[in-house]
């Protein structure tokens, strides 16, 4: 008897896809801003100006999506709560070891969890920390040309802690770390869809997973 | 016999000390010392070679 469970609520799915789109836009424009890969043929193309424009708009979308998801970690159902991302209970830690062993070919079976395994949870926690640092360093760089207390609060204070060159380097490197995450994330989602056979891939669109009763 | 020292030598770039041993109105021995060291050669090691000119020009 197959039962459909509503796992991923609308805000979770919405912020997920907003993240996908904005990260894609941020990466494409961001890599150009750091290392211009297009060659202008005339002055009217305004390539850098347009890239920065898209980058800034996407960064606002991303920041809002990030904040909404953080809020939802306290307002949403049990599958989106903050406890999914911080493995503090014994059973969560067991799924952490179990999942890691499975991906290393040390176990035949991946622990069956309806929401996230603890491994996924910890990964997303680290990812969100990367997002936070990226947002802060990004606004720090933005505050160089946008003067005011608001911008200093959003990220400008970082310059008191680390130099301008380091802020740039961190902002640049985290892009690559997120790229690594994306590669691994898509693969694991596909892999788990095959092994769990519960409609995992479609669940990020519909919100529902199928469970055998 | 007297030993004189002129430090600093002025109207030059850098820091120079000149000492001279004078006997009977003649200089019988002399020493010169550069009294400042920065270690620019040590600083150059491990850097991108294209920027070496920028540091050495500050010698």
């Amino acid at each position, binding site marked *: 008897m197959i039962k459909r469970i509503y796992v991923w609520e609308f805000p979770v799915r919405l912020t997920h896809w907003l993240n996908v789109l904005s990260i894609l836009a941020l990466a494409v424009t961001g890599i150009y801003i*750091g*290392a*211009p890969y297009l*060659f*202008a043929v005339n*002055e009217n*193309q*305004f*390539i*850098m*100006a347009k890239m920065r424009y898209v980058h800034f708009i996407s960064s606002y979308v991303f920041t809002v999506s990030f904040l909404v998801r953080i809020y939802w970690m306290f307002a949403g159902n049990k599958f989106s709560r903050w406890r999914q991302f911080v493995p503090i209970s014994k059973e969560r830690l067991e799924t952490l070891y179990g999942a890691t062993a499975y*991906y290393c*070919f040390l176990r*035949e*079976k991946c622990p069956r969890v309806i929401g996230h395994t603890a491994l996924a949870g910890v990964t997303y926690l680290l990812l969100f920390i990367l997002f936070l640092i990226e947002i802060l360093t990004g606004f720090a760089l933005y505050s*160089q*040309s946008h003067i005011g207390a608001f911008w200093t609060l959003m990220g400008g204070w970082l310059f*008191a802690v680390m*130099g*301008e*060159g380091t802020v*740039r*380097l961190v902002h*640049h*490197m985290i*892009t*690559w*770390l997120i*790229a*690594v995450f994306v590669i691994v994330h898509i*693969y694991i989602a596909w*892999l788990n869809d095959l*092994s769990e*056979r519960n409609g995992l891939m479609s669940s990020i669109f519909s919100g529902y997973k199928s469970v055998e009763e | 016999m007297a030993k004189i*020292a*002129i*430090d*600093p*030598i*002025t*109207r*030059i*770039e*850098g*820091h120079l000390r000149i000492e001279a041993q004078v006997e009977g109105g003649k200089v019988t021995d002399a020493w010169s010392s550069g*009294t*400042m*060291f*920065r*270690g*620019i050669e040590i*600083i150059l090691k*491990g*850097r*991108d070679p*294209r*920027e070496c000119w*920028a*540091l050495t020009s*500050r010698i």
Partner: protein
Amino acid sequence: MSTVRDDQSIWEGLSKKGVSRRDFMKFCSTMAATLALPSSFVPRIAEALEKKQKPYAVWLEFQDCAGDTESILRATKPTIAQIVLDVISLEYHETIMAGAGKAAEKARDDVVKNQKGKYIAIVEGAIPTKDGGIYCTIAGRTALDIAKEVCGNAAFTINVGSCSCWGGVPSANPNPTGAVGTGEAVSGITYVNIPGCAHNVENATATIVHYLTFGSLPPVDSHHRPLFGYGKRIHDNCERRAHFDAGQFVRKWGDEGHRRGWCLYEMGCKGPEAYYNCPTVKYNSGTCWPVQAGHPCMACAADHNWDAFGPIYKRLENVPGAGYQTSADKIGLGVAAVAAAGVAAHAIARAVKGKPKDEEDK
């Protein structure tokens, strides 16, 4: 070096040397502009220079290359001769003073003793602190010792050039002599930093004029640099900014873009990170500055620029642990490629191993 004219004002001294009233007012206007003051302040500056007596000054050189001395030698509004003899009373400067040895030291000691608390100390060059500061001595005394005495008794200290501001070239990694700026070496002094490699003499003169006009030092940022000179980002005032926004970058030295004066961002320009007034005030009496000449900015006035921003010709800092030949992008691409390869290997291994029992179709 003459030590007369104690009762002459600055304007009187200048006019006796043949500087016309017109040139004097031009100088006051230039100073107002450099200080980012409106033209309504020009009469006030003129009045201050008419009434005030020339302040005594002592110029100290430590671990330096005399580049900042060269900078003031290129002053034309007023000329160095006028500055030395008429605007301020420069009693001691190893590179240009007449006396040497004991006579030179006496000139400095006289100012420190007779003008205690009233003279201006100008410092060029870093102060070594390792091994008791033995890496720079003058007349047998360490630079540290001289700085403590001379800066400690001055009305205030002006540090000209990056070396005296934060250590400059001698303090570049691995800083063999423990070189530091004056502010770090001597505690408890009032000082203003005018960094730059070399500094722009206009900023130093403007600081002195500010002091003479208002009786106080100009407002400074967190690095003790006057905001009028170091408050704006170079990137925001660069004449090539339009090319940056258009996406027109120099890719190779001497290419078409370089000939046309395109943006030097790709050649490692640190303009987006640097705060200095070179694009507007420029060097050599407003003649030129590095970017105008076709060379990227290296943020020479920024704290530890030789190490904090990466190589001159690269956009980003070196990744810690990697050498200068790699870049953040190369490392990033490498890491992403490893991830992709790892993922591919995992997929192949899984296919080769066959499906685990519980995944087989029943």
